[in-house]
Structures are given as structure tokens and as C-alpha cells.
């Protein structure tokens, strides 16, 4: 069977599975729609969280970024996993005890303020939409390359699937679909990694292969790649080029951002008890770490393979995958010196680089570069789609609940019935799918910067507000609102200035203390903490019932199920 036939078969089968699950798990109450009825087992929730979290960025882009940046790519590995430690220790158990439906629910109630609630709603919607745009680009790439359908048609199909199970099943449908999607995506990521590890290092376990010996040369793989990189004028793979200070700040921003992302936090409202929320974060990170410890190995295998198969090869004899990716515009060759051969070299080389490779294609092209069987290539396509769709669905739910629950039920129209609220939630989810689809068909040209924006924003707004809300009873409404506003304004201002207002100045020489816009969320977060604590000291302490509330969320007993609150 051809690659395309396998791709159609595997993508089609996985889509049929998701639709089947959606029909089986329809939601009939707001509680089922928002938090899957609060009865999800910790293991299933861990798996669903892993799929929710691992997006097109983790599946498609991350290994590619690491492949091209080596050690510098560590910020994503540490940042996107270390955040789960913060989530487990500082947020998930307490938010589960509190037992709300959404993140703005907690912020609004803890800070006894509609304004705080609205600030949180705006942040949640903004963060989620920027994220969805990134997922849609992933869907478009997979469809465009493997199914050779028009990108718009591809995005349309993806949207129809998400529409079906998110609107019908809400969190309940999403949860069980995500469990299936985790299985599809991890299988799709591991199979080629195991094949490659066997081919290159003779070890089936990629994590060991990465620290092993390259069979062809008999040298340690990483040492060999460092040598290849330097020979071609790139920085050594294992040391990177970013400053230590910047790496530190970016990692911290990604960690705090991860812990503050609303679509991840709400997953821990779906389990029955506080202790389930704790262990569930552990399961989630265990499932995530399977992919995250494999990705650096895939990155090294991909880079070694890429260099070996294109460097100094005559253009006339390039393999088929090369021309196919050229057609998508994500790979291009420009014969600068006219010798008819491909020179792939780095900034320190005396020669001119002739090959441009979009880092998003490395994971997808890897199996073809390594000549793996056709079914493996189809599997990777299905895995990429599972990763993009599962995350998109989780984000759409955050948007829908922010509108129907936080904005309508808790702010504007508190008198609506549960049935009306459920209908509003479905309409909001449907509208969000359409907006996301629009972004997918007309992707903003700055997806990468926008995603950095989302993390910086989550780190500098929600993260300090929630932590202080739990750990400091003295934190007041005024402190939290001013803290969130100053954190966001500072972070957004810095990112917008360097990416959109004055992009020419976007270099280490002009950055404050050498902190890149990706890492500025850390400074924004510290500012938020400082402002919140300072203002809280000089404003009247929170009302007695709020202090009682804080006491109650600190002890597990009496969590019961997630439920509706009446202020």
C-alpha cells in the first residue's frame, strides 16, 4: 500500500474512533459539559491531560526546534514539564478542593470582585485563542503534505470533527476522546523513534540510544553530532548559543505559564477528590515525560540523518521526500554557488548556506528521511492530528465556559436556567470552533511569537494571583487586580514592542538584562508578585468569609464533587 493510502486509512480510522466516543459520551447537564460530571478516574484524567497538553507544538514542532538549536531547546523540555511540579504542589489540589468549574470562577470568588473575574475571563479567552491558532497551523501542515488536500479543506475537516465532539459532549466527550488521542499520539511518536534508534544506535530505547554510540562511525552519537555541527559552521549541539541568563528566564516563564494555563488547570476539576487531583498530575506528567524524554533523541536522530542525507548531495539525485516537501514551501534549495550540490552550512562557515528547512517539518519528514515503512509515515500523520485536535478541543472548552459560565451565568444574566446555560455553552463552543477555523485558514504570520505571548501572559497574570490566593490569606482584591494588570501590561508591552513595534531592535543588545521576549514573562510574574503583596499590605484585609474559604481549601476533607457556587 502507498503512503497516501496508509495515511487515509489510519487518519480515517482514528477519526471514526473519536466520533464513536463522542456519540457514546454526550453531556446532558452543565456539570457534565464543564467538568465531565466530576467523576473521571485519576489515571484517565492523567492521560486526557497529557493529550490536552501535548499539542501540535509538542508533537510536530518541539523535536524540530531542538534538532536545530541543540541545548537551547532544553528550555521547552524543562519548562513544559517542570511546570507540572508547580501545578501538583501549589495549585491542583487546592483548586480541586475549591471545586469550581473554571479558573475565573476561583479568581472572582477568592478576590470577592466581578472586576477580577472579568480580568480573568479576558486573559483566559486571549490565551486560549492564541493557542488554538497554533494548533490549526499543525492541522493544515499535516493535511497539506500527507493527504495532499487543500489546506482549507483539511482545516475544515479538522474543525468538523472537533465541532462534533466538543459541542455534543463538552468536557465529558473531550475527556474520553483525549484518552484515545493520547494512545494514538504516543504510539505514533514512539514507533518511528524506536525504528530510528535501532537503525542509528542499535538500541531500541531512544532515551538510551541518545547517550549511546553511533553504529556507522563507532563514535558516541552526541560527540559525533557536535563534530558534524562544528564542521559545518554551527554551534556545538550540546552547548547551544543562548546566554545562561536568558535560558534561565525562558525556562521559568514556560514553567509558570504551564502551571497557569486555564485549559490544563480545569482538567483537575474533573476528578472526584483532592487526593485524586494530586496523583492525577503525577500520571499526567508520567505520560507526558514519555514523549518529552523521547523528543531530544528524535531531534538528534533527525539532525544526524538530515545532514547525512542532504549535505553535499547533487540536487539532481535528491530523494523523493525532498521534492515533496519543496512543493509545500517548507523546504527550499537555492544553489548559491552554482555547483549543483546542496551545501547545508551554519553561520560560522565560510560557504553560503543553500538549504532552508522549516523546523516544523522535522518530525513529519523523519520517517521518510530514514526510509521507514509506509504505514509508519501514515501513523505519524494520524498522531500529529490527534495532538492538534485534542489540544484545540480543550482550549475551545475554556473559551466556551468563559463565555457561558463566567460571563453569562456569573456576571451578566445570573437568572438563566441550567438548560439555557448549557445551550449557551454549546453555542459558544460552536462559535469558537468557527473562529479557530478562520485562524487555521488565514493563519496569522506570527504564530510562534503569539504562543510565547500566551505563556508570558499566563505566567504574569493567573499564576501569581492563584498562588497568593491560596498561600496568603492577606492578599486583597485590590492587590490581585493591580498585580494582574501590571504583570500583563508589562509583559505584553515588552513582547509587542520587540515583535511588532520595533522588530529591528529585537536582539540581545537591546533587551533588558539580556532577557528575550520569550523569557520576559518571568520578570512580569515577579512584578505581579511584588505589586500584589505590596498593595495587599496597605488595603483592608479580605472579608472574614473569604479567609474562611482559604482555610477550607487548604485541607482536603470535604471536597465532594465539583459544583456550582452561589455568591
Amino acid at each position, binding site marked *: 500500500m502507498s503512503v497516501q493510502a496508509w495515511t487515509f486509512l489510519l487518519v480515517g480510522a482514528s477519526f471514526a474512533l473519536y466520533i464513536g466516543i463522542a456519540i457514546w459520551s454526550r453531556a446532558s447537564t452543565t456539570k457534565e459539559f464543564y467538568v465531565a460530571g466530576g467523576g473521571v478516574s485519576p489515571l484517565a484524567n492523567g492521560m486526557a491531560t497529557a493529550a490536552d497538553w501535548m499539542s501540535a507544538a509538542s508533537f510536530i514542532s518541539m523535536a524540530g526546534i531542538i534538532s536545530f538549536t541543540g541545548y537551547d531547546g532544553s528550555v521547552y*523540555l524543562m519548562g513544559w514539564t*517542570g511546570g507540572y511540579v508547580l501545578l501538583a504542589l501549589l495549585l491542583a489540589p487546592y483548586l480541586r478542593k*475549591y471545586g469550581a468549574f473554571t479558573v475565573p470562577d476561583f479568581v472572582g470568588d477568592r478576590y470577592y470582585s466581578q472586576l477580577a473575574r472579568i480580568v480573568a475571563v479576558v486573559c483566559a479567552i486571549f490565551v486560549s485563542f492564541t493557542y488554538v491558532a497554533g494548533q490549526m497551523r499543525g492541522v493544515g501542515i499535516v493535511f497539506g503534505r500527507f493527504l495532499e488536500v487543500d489546506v482549507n479543506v483539511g482545516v475544515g475537516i479538522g474543525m468538523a470533527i472537533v465541532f462534533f465532539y466538543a459541542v455534543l459532549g463538552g468536557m465529558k466527550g473531550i475527556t474520553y476522546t483525549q484518552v484515545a488521542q493520547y494512545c494514538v499520539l504516543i504510539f505514533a511518536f514512539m514507533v518511528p523513534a524506536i525504528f530510528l534508534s535501532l537503525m542509528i544506535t542499535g538500541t531500541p530505547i531512544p532515551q538510551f540510544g541518545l*547517550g549511546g554510540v553511533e553504529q556507522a562511525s563507532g563514535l558516541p552519537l552526541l560527540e559525533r553530532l557536535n563534530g558534524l555541527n562544528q564542521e559545518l559552521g554551527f554551534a556545538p549541539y550540546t*552547548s547551544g548559543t543562548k546566554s545562561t541568563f536568558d535560558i534561565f528566564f525562558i*525556562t521559568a516563564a514556560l514553567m509558570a505559564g504551564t502551571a497557569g494555563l486555564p485549559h490544563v488547570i480545569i482538567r483537575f476539576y474533573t476528578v472526584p477528590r483532592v487526593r*485524586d487531583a494530586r496523583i492525577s498530575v503525577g500520571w499526567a506528567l508520567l505520560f507526558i*515525560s514519555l514523549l518529552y524524554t523521547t523528543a531530544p533523541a528524535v531531534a538528534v536522530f533527525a539532525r544526524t540523518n538530515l545532514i547525512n542525507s542532504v549535505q553535499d548531495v547533487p540536487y539532481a539525485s535528491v530523494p523523493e521526500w525532498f521534492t515533496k516537501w519543496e512543493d509545500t514551501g517548507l523546504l527550499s534549495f537555492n544553489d548559491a554557488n552554482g555547483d549543483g550540490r546542496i551545501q547545508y552550512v551554519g553561520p560560522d562557515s565560510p560557504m553560503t548556506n543553500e538549504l532552508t528547512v522549516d523546523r516544523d517539518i522535522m518530525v513529519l519528514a523523519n520517517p521518510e528521511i530514514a526510509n521507514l515503512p509506509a504505514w509508519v509515515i501514515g501513523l505519524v500523520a494520524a498522531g500529529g492530528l490527534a495532538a492538534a485536535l485534542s489540544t484545540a478541543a480543550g482550549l475551545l472548552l475554556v473559551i466556551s465556559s468563559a463565555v457561558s459560565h463566567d460571563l453569562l451565568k456569573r456576571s451578566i444574566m445570573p437568572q438563566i436556567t441550567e438548560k439555557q446555560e448549557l445551550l449557551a455553552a454549546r453555542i459558544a463552543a460552536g462559535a469558537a470552533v468557527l473562529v479557530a477555523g478562520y485562524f487555521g485558514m488565514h493563519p496569522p504570520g506570527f504564530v510562534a511569537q503569539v504562543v510565547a505571548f500566551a505563556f508570558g501572559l499566563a505566567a504574569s497574570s493567573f499564576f501569581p494571583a492563584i498562588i497568593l490566593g491560596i498561600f496568603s490569606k492577606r492578599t486583597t482584591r485590590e492587590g490581585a487586580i493591580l498585580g494582574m494588570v501590571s504583570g500583563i501590561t508589562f509583559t505584553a508591552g515588552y513582547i509587542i514592542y520587540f515583535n511588532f513595534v520595533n522588530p529591528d531592535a529585537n536582539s540581545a543588545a537591546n533587551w533588558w538584562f539580556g532577557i528575550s521576549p520569550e523569557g520576559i514573562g518571568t520578570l512580569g510574574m515577579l512584578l505581579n508578585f511584588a505589586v500584589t503583596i505590596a498593595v495587599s499590605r496597605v488595603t483592608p484585609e479580605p472579608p472574614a468569609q473569604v479567609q474562611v474559604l482559604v482555610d477550607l481549601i487548604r485541607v482536603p476533607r*470535604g471536597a465532594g464533587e465539583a459544583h456550582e457556587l452561589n455568591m
Partner: protein
Amino acid sequence: MTNPTEHNHGEDRPSVTNPETVARHAEYWRRNIRYLGMLLVVWFVVSYVCGILFADALNAFTLPGTHFPLGFWFAQQGSIYAFVILIFVYVKLMNRLDHEFDVDEGASS
């Protein structure tokens, strides 16, 4: 405003006015903070210290039995394993603490 636990089933929900309970909860919280402090020190050391601040220095060594430069290994492998272990240790410590202070939850509702 009603507090969230008022909606819950279960007769033995904590009374926040009883001074004995208040003291017990305060001690529980103090122990919790101490655990968090210990675990977060490890969290910081495996990632920020070994994987970032001293990564270059550690790269002079390899992880025994492999060909990984040590700093690189912490940044791309070791820190992640440590994070997973940290969470499971936390779960174990907290479940024991909940039981000790009689604030644990009953069977799944």
C-alpha cells in the same frame, strides 16, 4: 456568599470555629509548607542549577555508563525524570500527612 463545602455531603466536614481543629489545621498547613519547600529545592536544583547555571561546568563529565555530557543530560533527560519522581513522592507524603492529621477524604463520592 456561601462557602463551597456547604454543598457537600459528608457529616464530618471541618468546623473552623473549634479551637482544637483550628490548631490542628494550622499544624497540618505548616507541615505541608515544609514538604513543599523541600521538594521545590530539589526541583530547582535538578533543573535551574544542574541543567542551566552549572550545565557548562557539568558537561566536562559524562553520566556514568553512557556518553551523555552531564549538564546536557540534566537539561534534556534527568530533570524530567526527577520531576515525575518528585510528584509521586509528594503524593505519598501528603496522603500520609492527611491521614495523620485526620483531614483525609473518604471513598470516592
